[in-house]
């Protein structure tokens, strides 16, 4: 398989990539937090000519990113983004990582300090199957939430409604959102029917003014 094929396969298997790429301006400077094997960065570098950097903690992913020929910095996101200057990126991306972080609010603030805009994706806990499983008395396990309660890295799951309230409470303005289920975009009853939420947000007020509710 050539690298082009490889790239195509990646974008097809991760429909949120295309949604994110649609928002990213060509030539932008992008920081991808928890960038995994670097496929999103590689995709953005290719399709949007971005100047991208990834942050990862795992050795395995650092190696995968290096193989993918993307810039990657080994760092623990929980310690913040102190190695990055304020307003030094156009976009800071947090793809399917927010729900696994201990300090959700701190990382969001940090993202909007370092970047002009933040792009956040997370699995929607409000998806109807998840609600049904809970009604049946069991923790939901699905394609979007593939873990059992005892082995999940996800500690801060939220619904679309939760996230939007969180943004309002913490002074973040939602610029755009795409709610997806597999590769379909869900417009009707998104908090029931969507499995993956993709948001673009910016600071509503300067960081200093942000107060806890």
């Amino acid at each position, binding site marked *: 398989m050539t690298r082009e094929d490889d790239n195509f396969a990646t974008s097809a298997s991760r429909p949120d990539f295309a949604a994110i790429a649609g928002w990213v301006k060509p030539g932008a400077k992008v920081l991808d937090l928890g960038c995994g094997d670097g496929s999103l960065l590689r995709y953005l570098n290719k399709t949007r000519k971005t*100047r991208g950097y990834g942050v990862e903690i795992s050795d395995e992913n650092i*190696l995968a990113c290096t193989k993918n020929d993307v810039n990657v*910095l080994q*760092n623990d996101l929980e310690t913040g983004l102190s*190695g990055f*200057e304020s307003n030094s990126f156009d976009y800071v991306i947090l793809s399917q990582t927010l729900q696994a972080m201990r300090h959700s609010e701190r990382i969001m603030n940090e993202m909007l300090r370092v970047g002009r805009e933040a792009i956040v994706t997370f699995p929607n806990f409000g998806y109807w199957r998840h609600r049904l499983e809970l009604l049946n008395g069991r923790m939901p396990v699905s394609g979007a939430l593939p873990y059992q309660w005892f082995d999940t890295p996800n500690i801060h799951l939220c619904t679309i409604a939760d996230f939007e309230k969180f943004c309002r409470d913490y002074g973040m303005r939602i610029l755009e959102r795409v709610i997806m289920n597999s590769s379909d975009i869900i417009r009707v009853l998104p908090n029931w029917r969507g499995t993956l939420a993709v948001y673009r947000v910016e600071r509503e007020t300067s960081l200093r003014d942000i107060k806890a509710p």
Partner: protein
Amino acid sequence: MLETSSVGAVVPQTAHFDSAIVLASGAQIAQYDLVYETYGELNPACSNAVLVCHALSGNHHVAGYYAGQEESGWWDNMVGPGKPIDTRRFFVIGVNNLGGCHGSTGPASIDPASGKPFGAGFPLMTVEDWVETQARLAQRFGITQFAAIIGGSLGGMQALQWSISRPEQVRHVIAIAAAPKLTAQNIAFNDVARQAILTDPDFHGGNFCAQDAVPRRGLRLARMLGHITYLSDDSMAEKFGRGLRSGAYSFGYDVEFEIESYLRYQGDKFAASFDANTYLLMTKALDYFDPARAYNGNLSAAFRGARAKYLVLAFTSDWRFSPGRSRDIVKALLDNELDVSFAQITSNHGHDSFLMEDEHYHDLLRAYMNNIEI
């Protein structure tokens, strides 16, 4: 599995330079030799050249072995056919730095002007000076731009300096277990090592060659001290612990603990093969390295003209050149929007980790090297 092999038997070469070099100190060296080795083939476009810069006690003998000798080059696990720095693809140069003691002109060489060894008269060198001499050697090969310049520790400093001094002449910099400058603690260790040599009665103010003496005790102590700082507490505990050679206390000052035996052996070996003046000037080059100094301490400003892509590697247990110092380098590169990757490799071998064979470390370097276009 990957097939790897040795570059095989190698023969060092010597390049002679007639044009004087003016050093950062203002001193001049009228003419000099640089001894070097090469592995692999330089392609017709001269675009596959890799320079490996050596650390404090290293030299040009990076890989392979000398006919009739068993010991191989200091980075033989890294450089060779199928190895992370693959000599089937790259043309690799190892050079003994000016001021060294393994063939290049240095304090133990004969000064043509006097017919006697330079000794104390040999000028102090800086990392910038080495970059200049290495560039002159590259010119001999017709290399106008290195595909990569790689080094660990003091070698990493040279690789970084290349991208500052000659930004157009290096595409990739791999700085391993390096630092943008030494800390006070680091300079302190270096000075204790120097004091051991300088106060050895056999040092004779640096002109020990003329006296037919060798400041063996000083060199030995310097190396023993250095060696402790290149290892980690954990690796020493693992390798030696409190092991006793005879199994019991002998209530004397002879070698009792395994670690004592090891350090004395390393010290003796080093004192028999290394020049004291070279050791002194190498430690000074380390102390002086500080590219931010010319920019009021602003490291980001020092890299403003840099154009290379960087791979910066640090090791968790390296307390001599800690991962934090590598992060300082990364921060300065990020401030200049340069391409950079950084990995903090888990290893308990301390500063010496950069010389060790570690699967993840080697996989990373291999992956990075594979993506370098030639």
